[in-house]
C-alpha cells in the first residue's frame, strides 16, 4: 500500500512541477502607436527644396534629403490599385498648392480620395525628366544613375477615409497648363486624339514574344495645342484602340523634359465620343 501511494504521489508531484512551466510565443498585441504628424508644409514649398538641382544639368543632379520635421497633407488623386494598371508602386498627392508624385515599395493600400499625411523627414526628392518626385533612400541603378527606393508606406504615411470626400479635377485648356498644375488632377474638354494616331492602341501590351511598353499618343484641342497621353503597357486598356471622337479627358498632369503629359487614372474618365474638330 505504501508503495502504491509513493508511486502515485511521485507521479503527481513530478508532473505538476513539469506542467507548471510556462512557454510563450509573445503574441499579445503591442500597445497602440498613434501616428504623430510633423508640422505641415505646402507641396510647393517642399518642391522648392529641389529647385537648385533643377538648375543643374541632369547628369549632375543629386537627390535632396528632406531634413526638416515637415509633413505634407493632401488628398490622393491617383493610386496604383484603381488605375487599371496604369500606375505601379506610386501615387499622386494633391493639396491646395499643387501636386507631387510619391513612389512606394509596394502597390496598393491607398485609394483615390483618401486623405493622407506624409512625414517627410528622412525622405528624398529627385526628378525623372524634370518631373519632381518624392521617394526613399537613393541608390545607383545598373547604368549608375541615381534612383530612389520606394517609401515604406506605413512608416511615413497616415491615411484617413473621409466619407464623401472627393477631389474634383481642375478644368483647364491645354494652353492654360503650367508648372503650378504639375502633379494635380486636371480635366481637358473638347480634346481628341490627333489624326495620325488614330488606329493605334493606347500602349503596347505584352503578347507572346512582344514585351509590354509604355507609349505616347498625341492629344489635341481644336486650336492646334497638343499634349502627350502616356500610358503603361501593363494597363488593362493598353491594347484598346484609341477612341476617335472628341470630348473630355481627366488625368494627372506630368511631364518629361519639355513635353507635358497627361496620364489616365480611371479609364472611364476618358469620354471621347463626340464629333471631331471640324
Amino acid at each position: 500500500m505504501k508503495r502504491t501511494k509513493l508511486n502515485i504521489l511521485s507521479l503527481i508531484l513530478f508532473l505538476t512541477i513539469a506542467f507548471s512551466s510556462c512557454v510563450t510565443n509573445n503574441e499579445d498585441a503591442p500597445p497602440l502607436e498613434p501616428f504623430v504628424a510633423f508640422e505641415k508644409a505646402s507641396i510647393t514649398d517642399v518642391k522648392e527644396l529641389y529647385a537648385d538641382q533643377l538648375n543643374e544639368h541632369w547628369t549632375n543632379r543629386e537627390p535632396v534629403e528632406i531634413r526638416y520635421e515637415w509633413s505634407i497633407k493632401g488628398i490622393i488623386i491617383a493610386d496604383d490599385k484603381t488605375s487599371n494598371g496604369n500606375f505601379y508602386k506610386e501615387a499622386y498627392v494633391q493639396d491646395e498648392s499643387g501636386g507631387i508624385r510619391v513612389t512606394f515599395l509596394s502597390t496598393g493600400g491607398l485609394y483615390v480620395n483618401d486623405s493622407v499625411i506624409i512625414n517627410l523627414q528622412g525622405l528624398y526628392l529627385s526628378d525623372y525628366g524634370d518631373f519632381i518626385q518624392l521617394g526613399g533612400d537613393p541608390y545607383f541603378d545598373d547604368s549608375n544613375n541615381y534612383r530612389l527606393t520606394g517609401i515604406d508606406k506605413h512608416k511615413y504615411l497616415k491615411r484617413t477615409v473621409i466619407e464623401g470626400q472627393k477631389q474634383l479635377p481642375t478644368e483647364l485648356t491645354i494652353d492654360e497648363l503650367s508648372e503650378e498644375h504639375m502633379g494635380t488632377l486636371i480635366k481637358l474638354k473638347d480634346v481628341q486624339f490627333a489624326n495620325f494616331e488614330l488606329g493605334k492602341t493606347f500602349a503596347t501590351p505584352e503578347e507572346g514574344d512582344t514585351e509590354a511598353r509604355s507609349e505616347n499618343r498625341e492629344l489635341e484641342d481644336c486650336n492646334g495645342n497638343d499634349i502627350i497621353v502616356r500610358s503603361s503597357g501593363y494597363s488593362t486598356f493598353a491594347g484598346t484602340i484609341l477612341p476617335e471622337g472628341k470630348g473630355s479627358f481627366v488625368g494627372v498632369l506630368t511631364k518629361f523634359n519639355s513635353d507635358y503629359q497627361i496620364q489616365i487614372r480611371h479609364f472611364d474618365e476618358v469620354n471621347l465620343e463626340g464629333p471631331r474638330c471640324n
Partner: protein
Amino acid sequence: MLAKFSWLLGLLLLVVTASAQEAAISGLIKDAESNQLIEGVKVEASDKSSLSDSKGYFILKLDKGGNYEVTFSREGYRSLTMQAKVGAEGTTDIGPIFLVNLTTDIQDVPTITISDSDSENTLESQTIPGLLSSSRDVFVSAAAYTFGPARYRIRGYDSELQSVMINGFIMNEVESGRPYWSNWGGLNDVMRNTVITTDADPTGAMYEPLGGLTNVLTTASEYRPGVKLVYSNSNRSYRNRAMATYSTGLMDNNWAFTVSGSRRWSQEGYKEATFYDSNSFFVAAEKVFNEKHRLNFTALTSMYSRGVGGGAMQEVYDLVDDNYYNPYWGYQNGNKRNARVRSGNKPMFSLQHIWTPTPSTKVRSTVGYWFGKGGYTSLNWNNAKDPRPDYYRYLPSYYTNSEDQERIAEMWRTDPTVRQIDWDGLYRANRNNGYFEVPNANGVEGNTYKGIRSFYIVEDRRNDISQFQFNSNFEHDFNESNWGLNGGLNVDIYTGDVFNVVDDLLGGEYWLDIDQFAERDFPDNVDIIQNDLNNPNRIVKEGDIYSHHYKSHVNTYNLWMMANYNADKYKVYFGGNYKYNEFWREGLMRKGLFPDNSFGNSEKQQFNTFGLRAGGEYRITGRHILKANASYGKQPPLFRNAYVSPRTRDNLIPNLKEETHISIDGGYYFNSPTLTMRVSGYYTRLNDQLKNMNFYHEELRSFVNYSQSNIDKQYMGLEFGAEYKITSTLSANLVASVGEYTYQSNPDVTVTQDNNRELLETGKVYSQGFKISGTPQQAFAIGLKYNSPKYWWAGVTASYFDQIFMDFNPIPRTSDQYWTLPEQLDAAYTIDAFAGKSWRLDDFFISLSANLSNVTNNQSFITGGYEQLRFNSERPELFDSKYYYYYGFNYFINLSVSF
C-alpha cells in the same frame, strides 16, 4: 544383485567426487533497475562457462581456488566483468550480480528534428528516429545515434519506404506516406519494446516496404512494473524534458495498466525564437483472458507547439555572422515572436486482439482510429510590402553599386527591424492605415462592410486527419513439416482536411477572402477573384477558414501472404501482396478561376497493384550467417503527388501511373564472443515516381506548379558495421556506409500557374545521373566504449561525412543554356562523446548520462539545403541557394530514477 551393487557404487562415487576438493562460484543474477531475476545469462571464468537458470541462479565449477576474472553477458544487457576470490573448496557465492538493461539505458537521444521547410520548397523533415539507436544491430544503432544529425538516411531511402507500427496500427501519414515522429514525441520510455528492421527482412507483422518496419509493442503487461521518472536538460530542440511512467505489470486479476506523461519545453531552442512546448500522454491497458486470448488497448497523443527555424542564403549568414540565423522571428513590443509555429495534436486509439488458438498459430488483429489536427503558421499579406526580412530586395546583393550594398549591410547589422520581422510595424500598418469598405460583402447585394482590413495576418496552414484502420495478420507453423504460413489484411479508410485559418489579425478587424493575385490580373472581374463563388466577398475573422478548403479521400485494401520453410541450416520465404487503392479530392470551395473543377467530388482514381518477394538465410555455422532478399512490386501514386494544385482544382498530374520497384539486398553476419560484424549490400531501383512543387513566382506574379513524372531513382551501396571487444571492459566499433544514389531518367515536367488556366511550359528535365540530395552518400564512424564494472561507462566517436548534394531546381535543367550540376557540399567530420553512471540505492535505481555532440564545435558543416525555385538568369546571386548548418557543440543530459 550385481546391478544393485554397481548402482550403489556409482552413487557412492558420485558423492565422493562431489565432495572432492572442487571450487565453484555461484550467485543470483538480477536486473539492476527492476530487481527481477534474469535467466540465460552466460557466466564465464577461465575457459569455463555456464548459464543462469529460470530462477536467476548460476553455478560455475572451476579447477581450483584463486583469483578469477568473471564475465557476465546476455543480449540486451551491458556486460559486466568482475574480480572474484574463489575458495579452494566448496562453492563461493559471489552474488547478487546486477546487470544493467541496455534498453532502459540508451543514450536517450531524440535526434534533432529538422522541420525547416519553406513554403515554396518541399524539403521535408526526415529524421532518423532516436528509437533506432536501441536496435541491437551495430550498423543501425550507429546510423541513428551518430549519423542522424547529419541528416543521414539509411540506404538513401526517403522515409515513405519505412513503416512505423504502434500496437498494430500503421502510423505513416497517408497523403505523404511518411511517418512523422513528432506525432508521438516524448513517449520514449513506453516505446522501448520494438522490433526493428531497416531492410527487406520480413517481420511477419505486415507487408513491409523496402526500408523496413519499426514495430513498437505496447502490451501493458510487458512494461517493468513500478515508476520511472526522468528529467533531461539539453540545448538542442528544447531545454527541458520531464517524463513519468507508471506500470502495474500483470496483476493477479490478469489486468495490466501503464500510463506515461511527458513534457518537453523551452523558451528558446538552439536557433533564436525556436520555443518548444509539448505535452504527451500514453495509456495502455491489457486483459489476459487465458493463454489463447489477450486484448491490449493503447491510446496516445503528443500535443506540441514549437517555433521553427528556417534556412537562409549564405549571404545572409555572413551578413549577421551566424550560421544559425533564423528569418522567421522578430521583436514585438520588445519580446521575440516567431511567425512559423508548427503545432499538432493527433490522438491515436487502438485495440489489439492477440489470439493463440494453438501453440503454432497466432492471429493479431488491430482496430484503431487516428484523428486530429496539424499545421504550421505563416505570415500572409495583401497590398503591402513583403514582411520577410530576407526578401531578396532587402538584401545588399539586390544592389549593384558597392556603396549601396554597404549601406544596406550596415542597416542589417544595426537595425533589428531590418534583420528580423518588424512585428510592431505590421500592427502599425494595420491599425493606422487599414480602414477599408467592402461592397456586397458576404455576397449580399448592397451590403457594405466597413472596418479595418488587415494588410498583414498570421495564418495557420492546416492538414487535419481522420483515419480508421483495421489490421490483421496471422502466423501458422505446420509442425509436422518445416513449413510456415504468414499473411494478413490491412484496411485503411482515410480523410484529410486541408484548409487555412486566420490565426491572428495583428490589430486589424477582418480579412477579405479573395485571390489577390487573380485580382491583379483581372481587376474588373468580380467572379474570377473569388476563392469561393458559393460565398463571395467573404469577410473573414480570427478562427475562420479561408483561402482554400478541400478533403483528400484515400482508401486502401492490402492483402498479403508469405510462405516460409525452416530447416536446420537454412530458411527461405516467398510471397506477395495485392493492393487496391482509390483516392479522390473533395473540394469545399468553388474557386473563381476554376469554377467547373474545384467544387465537389473529383473523379475517383483507382489502382490495383501487387508485389512479390522472396529471400532466405543460410547458417554456415551458428556464427556465420548469410542472408538475401529480393523484391519486386508496384505502388499506387501518393495523393500529394497526384494533383497539380489541389488547393485550387482537381487537375491531375499528366502521366499519372503506379511506380515500380525492384530491389535486392544481401548480407553476411558474423557473431562471436569478441566480434560482431555485418557486411551488407543492396541495389534498389524505383521507377516512374512523381513529384509536385508549388511556389510563388515573382516574375509571373502567381503561384506556379512544377509537376514532374517518370522520375527513376537508383540506390546502391555497401554497409559495414563491426563491434570488437578489445578487453572485457573496452570495445571498439567501426561503421561505414558507402552508397551511390542517383537519378536515372530525364523526367517530364509540366509548368502551370494558379491564376489562370494556361499551361506555361512542358519539357524534359535533363537530370539523369544527378545525385540524390539530402543525405551524405558516404558516412564513416569509429568509436571506443568503456564499461566499468563499477557501473559507469564512457565513450567517444569520430565520424566523417562526404558526398552530400543540394536539392536542385528542375527548371534551369530543361535547356542547355542554364544547365549545371547540383552543388556538392564539402565533406566534414565531427566528434561526439558520452558518459554515464548508475547507482542502486535500496529500492531505487538511478542513472545519469550525458551525450555531448560535436565536441569540437564545428560550425561550418553544411548538412544540406536547396536551390530556390525562383531563378534569375542574369543575376543568379539574387536567388542563391539556402543552406542548413550542423549545430555547434550541443548536449543532452539525462537523469532517471526507477523504483
